[in-house]
Structures are given as C-alpha cells and as structure tokens.
C-alpha cells in the first residue's frame, strides 16, 4: 500500500564521527577523509537547502561546533534539531580512561558544575544526596540542552531530545518504567518531544503498552530498511510494531542499511511503511547531500 503523505527528512551525523555500520574499514577511511568543521557544516547546509527539515545529531564537541557554524550561516532561517544524548562513544572512552563508572561519574559531575548551569547543578545535588536517578537524568538533560542552546542560538528549534539507545535499551531491559515516565514528564514540561533511540522497537512498544505509556507526542528513532539490518527481533516484527505505535513520531534510521542501498532503491519500501513519520540519513560528500535529499524530497515529501 502506498501512503501519500509528507515525511520529515533529517540529515544525520554518523559519517561526521567516522561511523559506518557497514565496515570498520570504511569507518577508518571516513574518519581520515572528514574535513573541517566548515566542510561538515556545509554538508548539513546543503542537505537543508535540498529538502532536509532538520539535523539529528549526538551531542558532542564536533556536532556542537557544526551547529555553531550553522548558526552563523543560517541566522535568518534556523532549522529543526533532534539531539541524541549522551554521545555514548565519548562516555565509554571516558570510562576507559577514568577507571570505570565511578571515574566517569566524577568527570560528568565536574563538567556540569563548570558549565555554570545553576538549574542543572541544583537537580544534580538532589540526585547525588538522595541517589535519585530521575533527578540525575534531568540534571544531565538540562546540561546537554544548555550546551546545545549555547552553540545553536535561539533560531534553532530543538524538537526532541532522544535518549541514546544504550539508555533506552537499559530502561527497557531492567523494567525502569519509573525512569521513562519521569523523563517523559520532564521533557513535556520543557515543551519538547520526549525521544527514544532504540534497536529493539517491538520490545519498546510491548513494554510501553504494559506500562500504560501512550505514544502520542513521543519521537522514536529506530532502524527501518529493506534487508532488516539492525531490526530486532525481525523486520516483520518491526513493521508490525509500527502499526501498533501509530501515534508515535517514528523516524527511520539505517534506511540505506549502512550504505548497502542507494537512496533511490529504498524510496518505495519506505513509502509503504504506514506510520513512518520521517527518516534520517547521513551524508559524507556535498554531491551525496544534494542528490540524497533531492531524491527524498521529490519522492517522499
């Protein structure tokens, strides 16, 4: 069935960090090829000029510098931002270098204190004194939001903050419904869409239903592609879950299955996915940015 509707098109940041889920060899080549912040900002800008509605990125020094550069270049226009927190790779590395979770905790606390965000620090004190995990999460969200806004300025509309898949999967696996609820409430108070990145979409849908958490207003980024790459437990189950979570703003990731397909080859599959509200795709060359978003704009908008 072909559904006639307009999809949100987002440019993603994976290639900017030298990430390729196809092969690590390709990751290394990308890492070596990736140019200056100016070039990367140019990739996002070209994507926006050719039909992308916004930028989905993990909050890191690199992406914040890109956002800062975009603020200068597009002061009149702005764009929509979908931010994923935390940038897990940075934190896993930090945990390696600081001797595990305790060292990592100390580092993050230090970063928050020195950010000068009083509200975040206040939530943090409460979180530490009472070992209140929800308060600690709120502290962290406020800290990341502060970083984004300091770099992006007021024109950028932060549509959603998405919990990185590591946090989402942990919350699902350990039945942390109380944390998910606290996060959703907090994001709604901030007037932003609570977001979740997951590679276990059917499991999330099942759990949220069990926990009586509605899907309306939620943003969920999860893989959708023709070969079922990173779609767990199966492509069919993910497609079924998409029907069940029709109220959610589901954004398809890994739509090219990490470079396995060309953009034109995936259009018809994506258009058949009832309830898919948007897609995110990474680009690493200016002509990729132009061609990819032109194809999606012409076929999916």
């Amino acid at each position, binding site marked *: 069935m072909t559904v006639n509707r307009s999809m949100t098109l987002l440019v993603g940041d994976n290639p900017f960090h030298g990430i390729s889920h196809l*092969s*690590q060899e390709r990751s290394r080549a990308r890492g070596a090829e990736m140019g200056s912040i100016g070039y990367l900002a140019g990739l996002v800008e070209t994507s926006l000029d050719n039909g992308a509605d916004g930028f989905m990125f993990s909050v890191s020094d690199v992406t914040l510098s890109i956002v800062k550069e975009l603020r200068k270049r597009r002061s009149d226009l702005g764009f929509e931002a979908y931010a994923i927190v935390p940038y897990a790779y940075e934190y896993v590395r930090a945990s390696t270098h600081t*001797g595990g979770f305790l060292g990592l905790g100390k580092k993050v606390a230090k970063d928050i204190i020195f950010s000068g965000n009083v509200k975040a620090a206040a939530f943090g004190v409460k979180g530490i004194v009472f*070992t209140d*995990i929800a308060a600690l999460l709120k502290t962290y969200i406020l800290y990341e939001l502060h970083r984004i806004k300091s770099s992006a300025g007021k024109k950028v509309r932060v549509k959603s903050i998405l919990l990185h898949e590591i946090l989402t999967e942990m919350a699902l696996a350990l039945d942390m419904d109380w944390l998910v609820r606290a996060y959703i409430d907090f994001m709604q108070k901030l007037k932003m869409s609570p977001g979740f990145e997951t590679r276990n979409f059917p499991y999330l849908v099942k759990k949220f239903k069990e926990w009586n958490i509605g899907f309306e207003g939620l943003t969920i980024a999860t893989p959708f592609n023709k070969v079922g*790459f*990173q779609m*767990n*437990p199966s492509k069919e189950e993910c497609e079924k879950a998409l029907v069940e979570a029709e109220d959610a703003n589901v954004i398809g990731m890994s739509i090219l299955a990490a470079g*396995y397909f060309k953009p034109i080859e995936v259009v018809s599959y994506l258009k058949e996915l009832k309830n898919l509200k948007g897609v995110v795709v990474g680009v690493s060359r200016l002509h990729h940015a132009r061609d990819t978003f032109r194809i999606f704009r012409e076929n999916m908008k």
Partner: protein
Amino acid sequence: MKVGVVGLGKMGLLHSCILNTLPGVEVVAVCDRSWVIRRVFKKLFKNALVVDDVIKMVGLGLDAVYVTTPIPSHYSVVKAVYSNKVARHLFVEKTLAMNFGQAKELCDLAESFGGVNMVGYMKRYAVTFRKAKELIDNGVIGDLESLSAYAYSSDFAEASVGSKESLSRGGVLSDLGSHIIDLMLWFFGDLTVESAAVNSVLRSGSEDAVHFNVKAQGGIFGEVDVSWCKREYRMPEFSLTICGKDGLIKVDDDQVILEPKNGDLRKWYRHDLGDAVGFLIGAPEYYREDEAFVKAVQEGSHVEPDFFEASKVDYLIEEVKRRRMGNDSQ
C-alpha cells in the same frame, strides 16, 4: 532460571540487561564491592537483592552466577561460588583467570562440581566469524597454509607517555588479544608459540603492543599483532586472514571475504548473515552468547567455550609472555 551477577561494571550491566529479556530468566541478586555502585544499583534493580559479598548470595537458590569482575578477582570469586555452593552453573567474563595455573585449578573445580560453565569469548557468536569457520570446516579454501591476525583498538592511542590510564585493564594480551587467540584456537585447534615481542608504549613495563608467531596443527604458520595504541580504530577490531591451497578468507567483525584461486570473489556483510537477535544491546553476539549459556543450563547440555577450552587462551598468553624473553623493546 534465577541468576546472580557479581561485578557491576560495563559487562555486568550488559549481561544483566540481556538476561532480564530472556524468557524464563530473572536476575535476582547482584553484587559489587563499591558502596556507591551498590547504592545506584539498588535503585536500578528494584526486584533484585544488592549485596557486597558473593557469600551473601548463599541460600538464594540461584541456578547460575555471572562473574563480571576485573580479571584478577575471577579466581577467588569463582572459587567462592563453587565452594559455598552459591550456584552450580557459572559464566565468567574473559579471561578465565590471571594465569594458566589458576585457570587449570578452576577447570578442576568446575569438573568436580559439575554443571554448565562458559567463558565470555563472544566473538565466536558473531555471524561473520561463524561464517568463516563454516567455510574453513567445509574445506572451501582447501588445506590451510598460513594465517595472519590482528586485534587493534585506539583505547590508549592518545594517552601520554607515563600515563597510568591502562593500569586497571592489565595488559593488552588479556584485554584485547585474548579474543583473537580464542578465535584462532577455535578455527585451527591447538597452537604453539614460536616467538614473541612485547612493546611498552605507555610506560616502562606496560604491555601495550604485542607481536607473536604461532604454529598450528599441520605446520600452518601464523602471525599475530595486538595493540591498543593504534590510531583510527574507533571500535576494537579483530581480523583474520587465512590462506589455503585453493584460496583465501578474510574475516573481521563486519564482513567475510572469500577469494578462491579459481572463481569469483564473494563477500558477506552482517546484513547477509541473519544478524537479528531477540534483544540488541552492545552487539548481537552478546545476546547469542547468553542465550546459548541459558539454553545449556536449561537443557543440561554443553556450551562453548567452556572453562577447559578457555584455559587454553590463558596458556597461550602465558606462552607468549614466556617467549618474549630477549625480544622486548620499550
């Protein structure tokens, strides 16, 4: 099936998450020596008992225990689990022990207590390495002639000289090299170390880059390189290139390439090899590994790699260190 997890670092948390999603499995007790970690995990594991000593898990009726503490404590924790009858079935994160002597003792203990035992060499459960093993076992490249392998990461590529950052991880051989050694043992059977060189990059006496040569059954010659100071290895990477009489196989975490001497090159990505799992966190191989362990416990069957197979990795690591004499450089 009731499971206890000892050690709440990255791996303890990862296994706890996976186990909780497996049908019929429940993590009912967790243990860590740090009171800060225990305080946090009491909030996260609302349905599990959080204790500071493995002895406090006695009498909980646990079917299995996961040992995910740092390597130096594996020996004492495993001994405590067995001798206090905390549980009959054990999963231990790699490496089994600090040295072969300890590993051998643990093998004997496991044998006398019975039950299922497994060590977390999860690369065996990655679809690409499984495909490569299948190709080799089916004789697709004919009689094997040589192999080269590496295990690289950038974990300490930017650490300054004199840095103590790697201290908590021990040496690169146990940390990173053990995976590639286990894969080689799985692919080729027993190995003999011919020569070895250990480089200290971070500080005097540290084990940061190791190169060694091995010989496998049938006179197959192999070269292995291991380092955690390589630039641009964003994620740890494990690779094997195997030459046979009729062709070559190159395999890493993402792909398998088959280059027959007579015939067309073939390539399989994870996409092509059915990589989906019941619940994905970390990497699909962790789920498959835990699923295999749980299935073995439930059915009373054997699972790979068990303590005995894994102890061969400890033996080989010791052999590399013994052979390094006179080859060191700093």
